[in-house]
């Protein structure tokens, strides 16, 4: 289990928002926050409408970690980016830096009084005793310690949302893309979503494999 990753298959996501609801219920996420969000591109345009479910991407070079003034972010051995709510001062810098809007505040108020930041934990709890009440109240369920995957992915009705070890999830997705007569060379991740010049790299990759011409 090197790196835990989410992967959402845009060809399968039907914008049911089941993952959002499941996450809110399982982790008892505070009011006004959705740790997971479903975006629909070109809503209603036949043949072009695509949906994606996105939460924290658990980046290996996380911007939230780089800007946090109190250094409260850390990465677990499984590559999950977590934060310590005891240290968090609620300044909001992580939410400015995050490309995916993953860190959010429980409520907004005057004088920047917004409580502690809340984010997707990959259902891995936080820095409290595993399975304890304190961990549940602060961070939500620790399903990883129970040998389970994040609930959003496990209950996804179309299996658009996959979670787990990056290599194995990529294999599942590649198998699907091959069945769709592609080559699966490019799967979602930091480079596709946020990297620089990813478009050129994708085009080059597509041209080399010849898969795009089919």
């Amino acid at each position, binding site marked *: 289990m090197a790196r835990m990753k989410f992967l959402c298959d845009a060809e399968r996501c039907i914008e049911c928002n089941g993952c959002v609801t499941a996450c809110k219920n399982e982790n008892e996420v505070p009011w006004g926050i959705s740790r997971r969000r479903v975006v*629909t591109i070109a809503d209603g345009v036949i043949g072009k409408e695509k949906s994606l479910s996105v939460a924290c991407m658990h980046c290996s070079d996380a911007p939230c970690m780089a800007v946090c003034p109190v250094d409260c972010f850390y990465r677990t051995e499984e590559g999950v980016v977590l934060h310590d709510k005891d240290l968090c001062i609620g300044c909001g810098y992580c939410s400015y830096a995050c*490309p995916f*809007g993953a860190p959010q505040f429980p409520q907004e108020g*005057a*004088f*920047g*009084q917004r409580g502690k930041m809340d984010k997707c934990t990959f259902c891995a709890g936080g820095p409290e005793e595993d399975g304890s009440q304190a961990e549940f109240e602060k961070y939500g369920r620790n399903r990883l310690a129970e040998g389970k995957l994040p609930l959003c992915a496990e209950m996804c009705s179309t299996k658009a949302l996959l979670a787990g070890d990056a290599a194995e999830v990529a294999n599942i997705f590649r198998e699907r893309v091959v069945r769709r007569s592609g080559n699966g060379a490019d799967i979602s991740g930091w480079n596709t979503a946020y990297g620089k010049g990813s478009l050129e790299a994708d085009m080059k990759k597509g*041209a080399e494999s010849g898969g795009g011409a089919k």
Partner: protein
Amino acid sequence: MKRQLVSCLRHGAAALVATLAIAALPAGAADAPPPANVAAEAIGAGLVQPGNNANAFREARRGEDQSITFAAPPDRVLIQSQGETWRQMRNGPITQYGGWAIVVMFLGLVVFYAVRGEIKLTDKRTGKLMERFKFIERLAHWSLAGTFVILGLTGIAMLFGKHLLLPLIGHTAFGYLAWAAKNVHNFIGPLFLVSVLLMVVLFVRDNVWQAIDALWIRKAGGLLSGEHVPSHRFNFGEKTWFWLGVVFLGLMVGTTGLILDFPLYGQTRQDMQLAHMLHSGGAMLFIALSLAHIYIGTVGMEGALEGMKTGYVDETWAREHHEYWYREARGERIPDNAPRPGHKASAAH
């Protein structure tokens, strides 16, 4: 079109912050996102994989024509690239150059003090006092100064604490400290802006351009030569601090602070990033410049602090440092454009 305009403004503002911090932009910070039509052409040419997520993510990243069912108000797009620019500015020039600006200014003042020493009164004190600052003016000044120091220290703790304090006192202690600093900063902030506005109203009349200021500029205020350059109530150095420090930086840092402090009015994350870059970049310059102001107002010049402390200065001090103001106060007429070449200057140093 509007998007492009906003994007241009953001890059422009980022460049402004860099200039303020006497910094050159890092090459990556101003990189424009790839033009949208490239993606469309690529799809048209069949170069892009169908069936995998590349297209969907690319579209999501372009941020156009998308809807989010359960979204917080600040999240109108799924993927924002501006966060990267903000991170590069905040962790880069604002932290680096801002920090060095303060350090260099401090060391520069130490050197200046070692070389020049305290600017003493040349003649003996007469013992007769002149009122220089009314009570309301001193109140405005000291409430501005007090809030400025608190905000400066708490702000520095939030920007540099991770590098300077955290390794010393550890995560838990620094977490409490930073939490306190943030809340103090947020609650004191509006008071600072009120003080700035009060200062502007009270002092703007005596800070307009007067002909004698040209002489002050030509002689660089006599700071290096030790010559006393005549001036009205405020000399050009004080006027520079008023317009650049109090008016420009004070209002900029104050208003952007309000945007950050009251996130209730539908600000997007991008608005907050822009406000934060102007706020922290401006604050770094403000703090660096304030060191010079504090220096000349305390250890740098004999008799300057007592003017703002008690409101009264000695007549000798007034005559030597603000000759025209002194003569006006004694009922003499000062010709309007009259930098007199042969005025009685005391070149003691």
